[in-house]
């Protein structure tokens, strides 16, 4: 499969690479350590560009296609960088029956991007996420680690303005 050219060029630092190589050296002899390594790699770089996948493949003696296969299988591995502020709108059932779809639509309209995309200035990205378990506050969204609950579409402009 041809790899899609990423929209943002890779800008990893030598420091990040040293950190990654150390993580791999620590974990690689444990059984089933590939996913933990990839999770740590994503913590270091924020996403898993092909350059990072290649380092993991070489250091763990695993074919790159297997790494790529795992990276694309699990929703939490990102091949593209995320925005500075990651907006996750919960589309779990409890939030959905209480109007989460209208919340998502309002954010998409206000930012002019669709779910899964990042604004051109790299500021905001939107994702529809799985149930985060704050069903008592439905509908819920998260911006980075901050949780906003009991939302109505009218709340959205005020919340987004805090991050402008």
């Amino acid at each position: 499969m041809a790899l899609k050219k990423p929209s943002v060029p890779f800008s990893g630092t030598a420091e990040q690479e040293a950190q990654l190589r150390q993580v791999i050296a620590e974990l690689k002899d444990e059984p089933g350590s590939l996913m933990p390594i990839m999770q740590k790699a994503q913590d270091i770089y924020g996403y898993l560009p092909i350059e990072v996948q290649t380092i993991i493949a070489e250091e763990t003696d695993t074919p790159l296609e297997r790494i790529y296969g795992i990276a694309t299988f699990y929703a939490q591995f990102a091949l593209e960088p995320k925005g500075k502020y990651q907006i996750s709108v919960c589309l779990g059932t409890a939030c959905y029956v209480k109007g989460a779809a209208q919340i998502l639509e309002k954010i998409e309209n206000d930012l002019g991007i669709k779910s899964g995309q990042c604004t051109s200035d790299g500021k905001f990205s939107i994702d529809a996420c799985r149930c985060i378990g704050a069903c008592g506050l439905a509908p819920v969204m998260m911006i980075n680690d901050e949780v906003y609950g009991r939302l109505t579409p009218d709340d959205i402009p005020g919340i987004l303005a805090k991050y402008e």
Partner: protein
Amino acid sequence: MYRSHVLVCGGTGCTSSGGVEVYNAFEKEVKAQGLDKEIAVVQTGCHGLCAEGPVVVVYPDATFYARVSPQDVPEIVSEHLLKGRQVERLVYKDPTKDGDVIRSLSDTEFYKKQVRVALRNCGVINPESIDEYIGTGGYEALGKALTEMTPDEVIQTVLDSGLRGRGGAGFPTGLKWKLCAPNQADQKYVCCNADEGDPGAFMDRSVLEGDPHSVIEAMAIAGYAIGATQGYIYVRAEYPIAIQRLRIAIDQAREYGLLGENIFDTGFNFDLDLRLGAGAFVCGEETALMTSIEGKRGEPRPRPPFPAVKGLFGKPSILNNVETYANIPQIILNGADWFASMGTEKSKGTKVFALGGKIKNTGLVEIPMGTPLRTIIEDIGGGCPNGKKFKAVQTGGPSGGCIPAEYIDIPVDYDNLASIGCIIGSGGMIVMDEDNCMVDIAKFFLEFTVDESCGKCTACRIGTRRMLEILNKITDGKATMEDLDKLEQLSYYVKANSLCGLGQTAPNPVISTIKFFRDEYEAHIKEKRCPAGVCKALLNFVIDPVKCKGCTACARICPVNAITGELKEPHVIDQSACIKCGSCMSTCKFDAISKR
């Protein structure tokens, strides 16, 4: 000794509504008032009533404060903790009883009918302290199993208790252990499924956040019973608080010699590791979960061989769900008969349900199996808010079905729900009222499974997608009655031809809504009408010329200028231009705009 304990909920629900700030404010204020020798501030796990968070309970009188903000804390400290007077305005008011002031936690309708076994310590102890767990009888069951029972006796006790898997399928737990125990291998594994993926179900998370040691203790007991020395807990990465508390708990258990080598000087060795999921629903399936722990794409494997024979890393393994494990120490301590005395003939014990959706008391409830649905919805849950009519409850997430209002007296257990095409599943209960469209709900779940199908089986990968396309046609008002037949046919085809539970159950939400709400499907198809007023393509916003005062508010807010009319004259909506955003309806002060 402290004269009073302030318990601040530190579950995900309350943390999301500001519980940590409230906890910090209490610590600060108690210290500032010089009360830190008399009053202990404790961060606990989930109390269950997440809708009223952040929740604070003050002992010894168990005063229940709801929706507390950090600004309220000085008042609680100076009034309640210093002067002994409850802060009336913050005490929980029962929404099911016209806002009666409820003084004590156990007096609420929400708690009164509950029997807490799996959740016994949630909201009661500090989950980050192994001493508090031990203080409530923790690790006694492990000691009893290791020193007084043979592995066979442990298995027999679990078997006799009648405990069935709480993750969804309801397989007898003792039988699972019994099938694995005799298989010889150099290594066996005990796994815990904490990949709670069903949207709207969060009981496993609450157990991990509120009482992580109960799961660790139970896994060690399971290890002793089947002869395994290594365990893995596979937990969703979406649960950061649960992961952190598990890590703390595992370290503490190792430090106390309750994990590791030669536990209780019996020569028994057992240790645990955490593995984090990465956002794949299919990994809740047992073989997919094990494949994922091995560090591969989490695709399911055909069975047989069953994991009891050939599971994780090709070795004999057992996998149980978090809530299942949370019951085990109590069963070992109190005996099989005690557990089997609760519940119905074939479903023993209690079950935790996560109540959500259109219900007043959203949160976690634990009740004996066989409790009528009406008790859960009306007495504990308080019914639908805003006087709306209860329509159905969805159980079992994307694998389950809908129970319509006419079955509200059904006793909830595995077999009763199965008899009407539903499942208990992991225990999510999403309540729906008259404003929810059942076709739209079926579509919601299909979108979920289309997204989460791992792609291995054609029937699931392509079949669910075709089903979703038909559902979209129906909600767009473009379907025919033949499409409905095709949808039903496809449902049974996907069920029959998928390898794992995901595909085999993916059509259930569709089958069950067609069975109980066929009239709604037909209204969409034949009359091009959505009775609940949800499906946008079938909606028309109309202005009632009698009620309209011609204030022009709607015309000004309409984003596509579809509304026209003279000042002080009735306005009209141009249906061909209308994008059905609903802004006009929410703006109108005279209730003159309705959707049909």
